[in-house]
């Protein structure tokens, strides 16, 4: 009997190509790791989630679903679980607690979770323990909070499995990398104003460096909206809307450096810095704050870029870009790429599960 594995994902895997999210990268990583241990690996996406993503994306272009993606209405999930042979289900995200409870009757469950998500739900201790207890294996994505997860799930053998996107093979004819790419989580999660102000000062003094903004366009009433608008007036600055996965690859091809424009204090610092990790995987050095998850990732040692403790300033950005241009982070990027490859090929992660 073949050993099958299903990765239940809230984001579409990157090769679907509509758009990339942290969930997409995480699902792809889990699938890659599962392929080391199982005969067949498929993504499961709930139809309701798919429709949400289609509406958000516009649905007009890039609408295809490949063979390794199973789309199932949420209401039919229980019947789906009963219909297929016993398999391993990996749930990526705490919102799937109920689905995991359903699948558990027939299948083995792996729970991939950031523990603060459980905290966010204000669950009573026994309920939290019950959710954690539904799973044979717990994966912790965040190094910073792994200790807490391990404590909560002492008897469940929690495993730290940090985010590790696919390291890109550097092209032999490498494109000219000229652009400083800015990115951040939605501004509600942190105050991007100091970073945008510093970037504005940087662009005023460095007209020769292309700056590409990938963070969400602010609502006109947001406090940093004016600064964002002023920044986009510079001729070398381009603000992009959401990119398809292919175009994200194109972006990293021309990226000289990546700046994660999040200041400390917001909950963004508790989110995984997926864009920063994606940049590193693409061979692009990163500038981020010490409160972000990228700064704490065990895969980034030595750190392929710069970590700051205070607010961003133009001189820090300029020094970082200058060092990136000089190739000062090449060795650290190579080490990080090797670490990512190693963890993605960690064949023992799902050992013993059938």
């Amino acid at each position, binding site marked *: 009997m073949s050993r099958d594995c299903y990765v239940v994902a809230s984001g579409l895997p990157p090769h679907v*190509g509509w*758009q990339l999210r942290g969930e997409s990268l995480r699902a792809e990583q889990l699938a890659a790791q599962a392929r080391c241990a199982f005969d067949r690996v498929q993504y499961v996406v709930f139809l309701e989630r798919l429709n949400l993503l289609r509406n*958000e*994306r*516009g*649905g*007009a*272009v*890039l*609408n*295809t679903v490949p063979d390794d993606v199973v789309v199932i209405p949420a209401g039919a999930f229980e019947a789906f679980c009963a219909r297929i042979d016993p398999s391993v289900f990996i749930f990526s995200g705490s919102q799937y607690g109920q689905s995991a409870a359903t699948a558990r009757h027939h299948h083995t469950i792996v729970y991939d979770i950031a523990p603060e998500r459980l905290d966010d739900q204000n669950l009573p201790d026994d309920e939290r323990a019950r959710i954690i207890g539904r799973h044979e294996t717990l994966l912790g994505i965040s190094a910073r909070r792994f200790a807490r997860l391990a404590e909560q799930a002492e008897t469940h053998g929690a495993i730290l499995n940090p985010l590790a996107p696919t390291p890109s093979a550097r092209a032999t004819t490498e*494109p000219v990398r*000229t*652009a400083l790419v800015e990115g951040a989580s939605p501004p509600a999660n942190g105050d991007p104003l100091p970073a945008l102000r510093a970037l504005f000062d940087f662009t005023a003094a460095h007209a020769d460096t*292309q700056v*590409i903004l990938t963070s969400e366009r602010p609502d006109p009433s947001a406090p940093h909206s004016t600064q964002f608008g002023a920044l*986009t*007036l510079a*001729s070398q600055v*381009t603000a*992009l*809307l*959401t*990119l*398809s*996965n*292919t*175009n994200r690859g*194109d*972006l990293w*091809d*021309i990226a000289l450096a990546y700046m994660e424009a999040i200041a400390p204090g917001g909950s963004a610092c508790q989110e995984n810095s997926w864009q920063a990790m994606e940049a590193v995987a693409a061979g692009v050095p990163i500038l981020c704050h010490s409160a972000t998850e990228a700064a704490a990732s065990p895969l980034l040692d030595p750190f392929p870029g710069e970590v700051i403790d205070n607010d961003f300033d133009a001189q820090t950005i300029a020094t970082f870009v200058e060092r990136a241009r000089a190739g000062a982070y090449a060795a650290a990027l190579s080490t990080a790429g090797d670490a990512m490859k190693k963890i993605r090929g960690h064949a023992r992660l799902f050992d013993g599960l059938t």
Partner: protein
Amino acid sequence: MQVATPTFAAAASLSSRRVLGFCSSETDPGIQHPQLTWTHHERDLFDPNVSAYVIADMGLLSDAALALLAGRPVLIVLSRQSDMRHMALLAFERLIVLTPHDAVINRTPWPMPEGCGPHSVDTPSHWLAQQFASGPPQGAAPYKRLSKANLTEAGARAATPPIANVQHFWRDLSHCADLAQTVMPTGRMIACGDASHTSSPFNHFTPTVLFCGAENTDALSGDKLRQSTALVAPFALPRGTPVDDVIAGLATARDEPFQLHTVLVLAELQDVTVGCVYGEFVV
């Protein structure tokens, strides 16, 4: 469906009628032409005898005055970087539709964003003498007979179908950027794949949209697409001719399956139907 009124020889009418220029009282655009008079007062723009505008300070125009640009050709004078960004913002939000009847005089040291603005001219004479600087795409020549109002209406209706709330990169296979931005909102897009724009960091990006005259299907053939790609293909047919052959020609131009989004009839001229096919090659 609203049918546009045919208007012929817009260029000829421009050459013999009144052109009104608008600028602030602090600005001296230094642009002169026998047909051109300047004003500092926005109210003068509402004069029905004016057939075209030269706008030097677009940022000063009210919404009501901007609406006038929908029906009359406009020459936009860009003197400052903010002028360029302001025009780009208006085009991004589709508050103005830039057509082949419009043009810019760019006096800033910065190049126009590729595919995101009307063609550039040096003087009003050049503008008055030449609309459709690059000519309509192959098979869509009757587009040249549409007035500014016709094209604005077409642009307003064509804004919706191919648009998703994502970043599009469009490739002009027909070398007619000024018509492309009429039938799709290139203000929200970034041009790529044009050998003459190698300075753009996005030039090597994989396109999400191809712009191609419906008869120019040879230009569509090529290597396997790296991602699903939308197609915008303007066409013109003798009135009474079915449109299915046009769709079939596009659908079979590549190996990838073709999904038709919509076909818009944008204007009915006396003897010709002009429209645009919107679809997608699915990867």
